[in-house]
C-alpha cells in the first residue's frame, strides 16, 4: 500500500524522533511512504487569514491527487486543518472558484477524491487491532498510561469525523494492543495549551502543569501523544525547569508501537 507522507512543518526540525518512529512503524506494517513536495497545511494561518489556510490545505491535497495518492499525517493539527479546509472549500462557492483558479495556474486540480488519514484512525480502521496485536512481539504489561487525544482531530466532529468528540475510545484501544493499561483520565480530550504558547505563555504553561497533575492523580506513569504540537508542548518541561511534572513522562505513541514491533526504539 502506498501513501503520501505529510510530516507537517515541525517534525523535520523540532521533533525528528516522531518522524523516525512513524516511518519505522509504517515500514513494519508494509506501508510505502512517498514524500511529495508539500507546503504548510495552513493551520498556523487559521485565525489570521482564512483564504490562506484553506488554499494551503487544498493545494497539498491537489499535489497528492496529481500523484494519485492518499495522505497520511502523524500531526493532529494538520489532519484537522485538512478536514476543516475541505469542509469550507465546498461550503463557499466564491472561495472554491478562487482556489481552483490558483491551482489551475500551477497545472493542479482537486476533485475531492483524496482521502486524509491520521496515524491513529489509519491504524484503527485500515490496519485493524488484530493485525497490530499479531505484530506486537513485545508487551509492556501493567504500565499505566494516560492518552492525550488532541483537539483538532477530535473537534468539531461534524468536520473531522475522527471519533466521539467527548468520549473517544480509539486511542485507548490502540494503546491496549501493546499491553499497556490506559487510565481513566478526565483531561484526555482537553487542550494541551500549545496554540497560545507564544501569545500567552503563562496560561499555556498553567494548562500544561495541570495536565501533568491530573494524569499523575489518575495513576499514570506516562502521557501518550499522537500529535506533533501536543508532544512539543509536553517537552516544554525541558526548557522550563520550574514546571512540576509529578513524575509523569510524555511519550510518543509511535515510539511505543515501534518498540512493541521490535524496532530500534528502546522504551
Amino acid at each position: 500500500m502506498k501513501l503520501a507522507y505529510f510530516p507537517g512543518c515541525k517534525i523535520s526540525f523540532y521533533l525528528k524522533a516522531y518522524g523516525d518512529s512513524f516511518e519505522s512503524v509504517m515500514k513494519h506494517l508494509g506501508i510505502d511512504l512517498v514524500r511529495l513536495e508539500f507546503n504548510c497545511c495552513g493551520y498556523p494561518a487559521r485565525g489570521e487569514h482564512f483564504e490562506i489556510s484553506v488554499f494551503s490545505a487544498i493545494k497539498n491535497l491537489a499535489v497528492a491527487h496529481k500523484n494519485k495518492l492518499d495522505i497520511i499525517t502523524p500531526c493532529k493539527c494538520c489532519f484537522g486543518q485538512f478536514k476543516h479546509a475541505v469542509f469550507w472549500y465546498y461550503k463557499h462557492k466564491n472561495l472554491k472558484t478562487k482556489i481552483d483558479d490558483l491551482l489551475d495556474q500551477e497545472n493542479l486540480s482537486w476533485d475531492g477524491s483524496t482521502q486524509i488519514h491520521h496515524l491513529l484512525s489509519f491504524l484503527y480502521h485500515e490496519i485493524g487491532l488484530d493485525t497490530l496485536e499479531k505484530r506486537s512481539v513485545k508487551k509492556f504489561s501493567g504500565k499505566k498510561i494516560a492518552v492525550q487525544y488532541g483537539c483538532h482531530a477530535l473537534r468539531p466532529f461534524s468536520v473531522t469525523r475522527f471519533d466521539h468528540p467527548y468520549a473517544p475510545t480509539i486511542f485507548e484501544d490502540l494503546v491496549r494492543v501493546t499491553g499497556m493499561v490506559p487510565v481513566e483520565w478526565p483531561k484526555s480530550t482537553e487542550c494541551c495549551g500549545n496554540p497560545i504558547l507564544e501569545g500567552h505563555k503563562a496560561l499555556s504553561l498553567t494548562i500544561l502543569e495541570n495536565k501533568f497533575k491530573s494524569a499523575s492523580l489518575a495513576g499514570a506513569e506516562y502521557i501518550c501523544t499522537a500529535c506533533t504540537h501536543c508532544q512539543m508542548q509536553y517537552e516544554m518541561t525541558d526548557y522550563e525547569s520550574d514546571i512540576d511534572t509529578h513524575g509523569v513522562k510524555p511519550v510518543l505513541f509511535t515510539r511505543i508501537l515501534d518498540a512493541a514491533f521490535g524496532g530500534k526504539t528502546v522504551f
Partner: protein
Amino acid sequence: MFKPASSDRFNPGRLYPNPVNLILSFLNTIFQIRLFAAGKIRWLFHFFVFAGFLYLVTVHAFHQVTAVVLFDYYDPTVDPFQFLRNLFGSLVVAGCILFFLRRGLRLRVNQIKSNWGSHLKYKGLVSIILVFLIVGTGFLLEASKIISEPVFMEMVEDYSDLEEGDELEELKLFWQEKAFVSFDPTVPADPEKLKNGQVLNEVYCISCHSDIRSSFVSCLLADLMSFYGTVLNQTRVDVMLYRVHYGLCLALIVFLPFSRLNHIFLIPLSIAVKNQAPKTHHQKTAQVFGASLFACTNCGYCSQVCSVYPHFQITGNPDVLPHSKIETLKKIADKHPDVSLWGLQKGNNACTQCNKCTQICPSGIDLQTLWAVTHRIFSDNALVNNQTFFNRILPEAWADLETEPRMLIARQELVSDLIEKTDAFENCIQCTICTNVCPVVEYDSKDNDYTPQQVMNLLRLDQKHLASGTRMVWTCLTCYACQDICPQKIPVTDIILELRHLGGVRADAVKLQQTVKKRVEIS
C-alpha cells in the same frame, strides 16, 4: 506557534571547527556539493566557470609561485599547460554563455515566481561579463601572439644564433606552415626548405614549444586572424591585448568586494562564523546578521521550497519568501529609506520554521535562526504581533478607536462570513455551557474579561468591534470544546477565529497609522 522557545535554543557551537566539518566545507567550497544537491543544471555551469577560473588563476595568473615552483619543466607554451589553459578557458566561456542564455531567456526560478526589484535584475551581470571578457581577451591575446611576426623575431633573437639568411627563411617557413605565423611578405613554400626548417625548429624551439595545435581555441582564432595578419602585426595588437587583458584582471580585483562575486569569500566566512558558540542573544544576532546575510547570492532555491509559498500566492507579499526577506534585511542594514518593515513583519510571522530553506541553501546560511532572530527583533520593537497588541489595549478603548478606511490596506473579503450573518449566533440562549467547558476561563479567571457566551452576546448586541478586541478572542486555544457541546449548534470557535481575523485587519490599520504618524513627527 512555537517560536519563542525555539529561538531561545542555541546550538552549542565550538571554539575551533570540527575537523570533519572543516574538510567537508573545504570540499563544498571546491565542488559546491550543496549547490549540486539543490540544482544539477545550475551546478553544471556554475562549476564550469568556477573550476575553469580557479585553474586559470592558480596555474596561469600566479604561475610564478605555483607551476614554476612545482614543475621544473613548466613553460606556458609546453603541454600539458598549453592544452589545459585552453581547456579550462573554454569551460569558463561555455559557462558564461550558458549563464547569459539563462538570463536572456528568463529561466531563473525566482524570476518567474516573485516580483524582483529592478536593482536586482542586473545584479551579478557585471562580474560575469568581466570574467567573460578576461578569458575572451586571454584567448585573443594568445592567438595574436601566435600570428605575430614581431614576437617570432624577438624569440629568434633571444633563443637562437640565427642571422638574416637562408636558415632564418627556412625556420620562418616552418612556423608559417605549422604554427600560423603571418609573415610580411609571405615566405614562398618549398618542401626542401620546410624539412630544413623542421630540423632548425628541433634545435632551437622544441624544448619550450609543444605542438601549437594543442591550444585548440587560440589556434582557431589565429586561423581567423591571419586574414588580417599583416595589419594586426604592424599595429602590435598583441601588446594592446596584453594591456587590456591585464587591466581587466585588475578591474576584477578592484570590483570584487562590490560585486556578487564576493560570495566566493563570504560563504566560507559565514560557515566559519556559524560554527562559533554564541553566549547571548546579541552575539547570536551579530553572528547571523554580520556574516550570513551577505553570503546570500539570491539564487532563490529557498523560496522554491518555502512551506508558506501559498501565503505569497494569496497576499502577493514578496517578503513571505526567504530570498526576498534577505533582500529587505540587507536594505535595513544599509539604512535604505524605502523599506516596508510592515511587509517584512507580516511575511516573517507567516514562517512555520520548517527548516526547509536552511536545508537547501547552497551557501549554507542558517536561515532558520535568521528568521527566529528577525522575529524576536520585531517582538522587541514597536511592530508587535497582534496577540501582544491586544494584551495591551482594553476592548472598550479598542472599539472606540477610529481607523482611517484608506489604512485598511490588508482588507480582504471575509469569505467565511459568520459574524456578518446573524443566523450564526442569534440563537444563543446564554446557557453558559460553552463557558463551563472553556479551559481558558478555567485557568485564566483572573485576567480573562469576557467569557465565550458573553462574546456571543456582544455580537447579538451588534458590538463586533468590541468583541474582536476582547481577551477571550485572543487567548482562545481553538480547542473547539465549546462549539461541539453547544445545544444551539452555534459555531463558537469558528466565530472567534473570524473575530480574530476582523480584529487583525483593523489592528494592522491602527499600527500602520501609528507608524505613519511617527514618521511624520520625525520628519
